[in-house]
């Protein structure tokens, strides 16, 4: 236990990076995923095809491969020093990798959310003359939001846990801190593991609670 208390600064640094990864990748994934979700339901066949291919590729590939490729791919294109907000370039690569991967799942959640909105709503929107974009934006998506939040909760929780994988592509976040401390204090491996695990459990709980609150606030009367 003492080990945990003595090293709390380092543990906190690790989780701070975890939170940053979660936040930025989450935003990226949500934006990209929503766009892709609209692609999948759009009348333009090419867009539908882009959405479907994207999902099939990124959903079925292990995140490890995507992260390792991210660390190798962007430098090949010329971006090798793209840190921002004080974080180094590897954090950016990791954010991109996590964001692109998670976007595929957000896309599916958004799509099933859209599909869960009663057909009558879209028909009513069409009948007053709204375009595809308008009916999506003003009528369907707001209602879909309510149906989308439960799966999004699982997705964000999975993302929070997936940030631990960035420990093998250059990001010293909480899982890396666990390895480091286990090496230094080999007699306290159990305490260290349960301590860091507890950190993740807390993170997951907080996320669930926040999202459930959001769901209740956003609940649209049907």
């Amino acid at each position, binding site marked *: 236990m003492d080990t945990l208390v003595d090293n709390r600064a380092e543990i906190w640094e690790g989780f701070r990076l975890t939170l940053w990864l979660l936040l930025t990748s989450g935003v990226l994934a949500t934006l990209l995923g929503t766009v892709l979700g609209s692609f999948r339901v759009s009348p333009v066949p090419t867009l539908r095809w882009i959405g479907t291919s994207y999902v099939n590729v990124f959903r079925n590939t292990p995140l490890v491969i995507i992260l*390792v490729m991210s*660390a*190798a791919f962007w*430098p090949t294109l010329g971006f*090798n*020093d793209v840190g921002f907000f004080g974080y*180094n*370039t*590897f954090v950016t690569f990791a954010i991109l990798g996590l964001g692109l991967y998670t976007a595929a799942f957000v896309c599916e959640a958004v799509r099933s959310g859209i599909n869960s909105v009663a057909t009558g709503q879209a028909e009513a929107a069409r009948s007053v003359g709204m375009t595809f974009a308008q009916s999506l934006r003003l009528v369907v998506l707001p209602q879909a939001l309510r149906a989308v939040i439960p799966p999004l909760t699982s997705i964000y929780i999975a993302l929070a846990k997936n940030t631990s994988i960035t*420990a*093998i*592509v*250059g*990001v*010293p976040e909480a899982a*890396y801190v666990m*390895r*480091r401390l*286990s*090496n*230094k204090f*080999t007699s306290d491996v159990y305490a260290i593991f349960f301590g860091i695990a507890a950190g993740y459990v807390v993170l997951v709980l907080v996320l669930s609670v926040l999202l459930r609150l959001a769901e209740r606030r956003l609940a649209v009367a049907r």
Partner: protein
Amino acid sequence: MRFTRTKAAVGALALGLSLAACGSDSSSTEVEVAEDPAFDEGTTMAELSDAGSIRIGVKVDQPGIGFQEPGADAPTGFDIEIARIIAAGLGIEDDGIEWIETVSDNREPFLENDTVDIVVASYSITEERRQLVGQAGPYYVTGQQLLVREDDKETITGPEDLEGSNVCSVTGSTSLDRMVDEYGSEPVPFATYSECVEQLKNESVDAVTTDGAILLGYAAEEPDELEVVGEAFSEERYGVGYSKGDTEFCQYITDTVQAAMDDGTWAEAFEATLGESGVDTPEPPQMDPCE
């Protein structure tokens, strides 16, 4: 040591993967095979010598130390040379050697259950290991060092120059921890050394750190682009693993390697392998007596 730095750099199951046209052709030395060595009855040496074959556990994925190219019948590297020297003393030709790839975790089990006769695989000598197996040597002493780009070799001469800089090593390795704790570097953990070397070439990190021997292997592949700098700031003593308790075998191994150190074969082996990196051939280390 619960965790060795080399852990994640091991080639677990793949045999003989290729390196694109990068290996040197002249990476083995002429080793004189003993004509008709005589050993006492019942010793391991007599057994092996009579059989004309020996099973040696090695690494196959560490350039310069133990590395196998495709289509090649045997791996090459400094460890391989030492192993050949030991086999030669038993009168065993190269084609009598069975190279068995090992990973960090199965070196002790392989010796304990007789899958191999000896292990020459960047095997650091530690007290813990000496409880389970015998370790003769060291035949090479290395320590933590730094691999940098050629352009930086004047500015980065030691770990002190890397305060605040990105330093890469394998996730969970003690070399990385040391750089962070003692020299204030920024850690960049990856799964394998080769990924680190790639990031070094990409200029995303300023140095790669681990055992000098492993770094020399990578520097030997690209001596014009990469350089190993600085004095070693820890100590790893590579030894030859054998079945615990076989003191006569230990004595044989120690004597044979000592002879190679004395007559220049050891230095030749180094020059042909790790020496390709451009570094000077070091003095052979002092070997431990057999218990």
